[in-house]
């Protein structure tokens, strides 16, 4: 397959970026999107040019490192996958593909398509945990948890922190990310104990970092590679409201 690629290139955070056009030919339909970029980079190295920087690591859809905004969609034109799981067979031969970095004020660009998502770590740091130290905890089966609640917690916990929700949201809101963590702990008795403090601290941090406000457009849910649902945002709202009025 042959493609025309329009790729955002940017030296560093301060510099002004631009789109560069690359032609690539003979791409296997079975190769992944990142393997296609590997091929392009190989060609750039052959020409002694600087390859395109992009974040990636596990290449099996779980580490959350990769994330490109491809033809107007985070992680590209397929549902419930990360960029590394996107395969070229999802495109048509001869397509022009526009590749952009995640765009949000809290995600400054480091280089080319690499953005700094430390903001998401900072939100977790503010309260995305259960405050137990190592050792001295009760037996694992001491607290039974209904399968239903454990399953909901697991649904929420499957967030990989890739930031596609922020990238997809027209407001660059991180509500789906935050709600996934809040929701996971809200559904578990262990997590209830500091639920109120947790939700307040995480929301405050999220606001402080400059993410936008949720307007329930649902783009995050549509693009989440782990299909995390808007119901978690509703639960976050409930948790927040309950924490504030009590």
């Amino acid at each position, binding site marked *: 397959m042959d493609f025309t690629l329009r790729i955002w290139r940017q030296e*560093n955070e301060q510099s002004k970026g631009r789109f560069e056009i690359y032609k690539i030919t003979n791409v*296997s339909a*079975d*190769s*992944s999107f990142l*393997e296609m970029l*590997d*091929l392009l980079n*190989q060609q750039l*190295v*052959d020409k*002694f040019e600087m*390859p395109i*920087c992009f974040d*990636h*690591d*596990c*290449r*099996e*859809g*779980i*580490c*959350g*490192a990769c994330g490109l905004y491809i033809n107007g969609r985070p992680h590209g034109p397929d549902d419930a*996958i990360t960029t590394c*799981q996107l*395969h070229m*067979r999802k495109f048509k031969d001869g397509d022009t593909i526009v590749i952009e970095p995640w765009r949000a004020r809290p995600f400054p660009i*480091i*280089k080319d398509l*690499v953005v700094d*998502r*430390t903001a*998401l*770590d900072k939100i*977790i*740091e*503010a309260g*995305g*945990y*259960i*405050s*137990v*130290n*190592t*050792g001295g*905890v009760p*037996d*694992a*089966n001491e607290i039974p948890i*209904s*399968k239903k609640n*454990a399953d909901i*917690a*697991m649904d929420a*916990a499957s967030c990989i*922190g890739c930031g596609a929700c922020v990238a997809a949201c027209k407001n660059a809101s991180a509500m789906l990310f935050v709600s996934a963590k809040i929701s996971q702990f809200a559904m*578990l008795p*262990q*997590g209830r104990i500091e639920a109120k403090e947790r939700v307040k601290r995480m929301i405050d941090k999220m606001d402080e970092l400059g993410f936008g406000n949720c307007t329930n457009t649902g783009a995050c849910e549509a693009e989440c590679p782990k299909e995390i649902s808007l119901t978690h945002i509703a639960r976050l709202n409930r948790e927040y409201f309950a924490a504030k009025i009590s």
Partner: protein
Amino acid sequence: MAILNSKIPEGPLEQKWNNYKANQKLVNPANKRKLDVIVVGTGLAGASASASLGELGFNVKTFCYQDSPRRAHSIAAQGGINAAKNYQNDGDSIYRLFYDTIKGGDYRAREANVYRLAEVSNLIIDQCVAQGVPFAREYGGLLDNRSFGGALVSRTFYARGQTGQQLLLGVYSALMRQVNKGSVKLYTRHEMLNLVVIEGKARGIITRDLKTGKIERHFGHAVVIATGGYGNAFFLSTNAMGSNGSAVWQIYKKGAYFANPSFVQIHPTCIPVHGDFQSKLTLMSESLRNDGRIWVPGKKEDAEAIRNGKLKPTEIAEEDRDYYLERRYPAFGNLVPRDVASRAAKERCDAGYGVGTGLAVYLDFADAIKRQGKDVVEQRYGNLFQMYEKITDENPYETPMMIYPAIHYTMGGIWVDYELMTTIPGLYAIGEANFSDHGANRLGASALMQGLADGYFILPYTVQNYLSDEILVPRMSTDLPEFKEAEDEVIGRINRLMNIRGKESVDSFHRRFGLKLWDAVGMARNKEVLTKVIEDFKQMRKEFWKNIRIPGEQADMNPELEKAGRVADFIEIGELMARDALDREESCGGHFREEHQTDEGEALRNDKKFMYASAWEYKGEDKSPILHKEDLIYENIKVQTRNYKK
């Protein structure tokens, strides 16, 4: 050998760890604040160690090459984590987990370490549940278990097909809590490039900031390496693209011994290689072998017809299928340990019965779907099936999956004593980075167990035994000549790399090297090939340093430079792997020497001569390393031939 002191505590096996803890030295809280501990790596081992040490009050500095600690490759573990809880009342116990692990490792692991691992396994599950890890549960609200290869009990705890993710996010949350408290300082996008040794003790590291290329010096009273395995040496593996062996290789070069480098695990259920553009292999969880049945066509002509696309697997009649694992190993069937399953697949494919490209076998769920319904199968493995479909464009509910073995894990690693300390005082290696617990083959769901055991429940104790003697050592200045020297080494090497300006890209070289390594030190090894490949690797190393091409600048984000440094180390690691494989004139676990097999093609151990862990000592560039042997003594377990047939 007197030089290797494994420091196994006195007393009966069950009492060793308790005795150790009862008699070890501790550091008082006021002194902990004055002690700096460097932890490199934020996988299960590194993050749990950082969090636990932070909670204890040490001043921890934690490094990872990823943009966030949450991305460490522990996250990709799918199947589960073992513990001897015996919640299923199926006869499990600490002893049985210990026994299975030693046996699974083909009697090449250290008894005392493995027993301790089994002992603390139960604490891990408690800890994770308390942290909010959403393990799978039964309708009654209690924890569910599944079975895994190499065991006759159900002792594996899991969170769908994402157990590693959930455990890692658990330790990540504990870590971030300590970051918030200020007891852990986090350095993301930092790669360790050298170890600083002062007066024989590990005192710090040199790192490169991957964002800016800045070289930095960091001091620590102790240094903990938790950087995982070196499986990426093979280029194609199930490891993450960034996983590397560089940290362990640097400490090896500074004097830490490297143990059992040839012991690598080849995982039987990976998606087969399908093109030369491929950058990595994807694992399909071993848990699939609970319900999936592995087979190839029983007739060669059928296999050929399938390979040529003339026949579909679903068209092969039941009696024409060869469920070779069930045939060869009736007792364990599809749940034999990984090394056995991998070799059996290779045997069938080499004999001409492979499907797909010829290097693939079927993993079939048709029976499971018929027996339990599609819903149940979907609930158990839905995400894995989806992943498979995304990659291969085939629907595993309708046609059997194709799988083939791939490099997955390295049992070998830095030699450590019972305290997890390397041969350099003050330098520790934990998790996959060390060699201690899995012998020649790791059982499924044991890597997560070991990572968390080391980080949560072992290192935080043992490191105090060392640090208690360091309380009077003030924080050292990083202006000391030893720091400068280590930094100069790093800068010199980077400059050398940048100035090669040759013709070949790092990836292209790595791919060639990896294939060669796979052919020589992969699933089957022999003397002739190994002897030759050692020389080849020496040549390749020279070639690398003459012909590699790295565009861009040093003082900038430069992935090509990062990869070049790692590949340079992989070449040397590969050479050591081959040496070790050559030395070990026996077949055991993942190490299969073609000269040493039974008439039935099973691995043939030689306990008389090789019941030891090899520990290699670096002697300098272009000098052969020296082999030290730690004899393995089994006092509590009867050493026998592994038998998964009955």
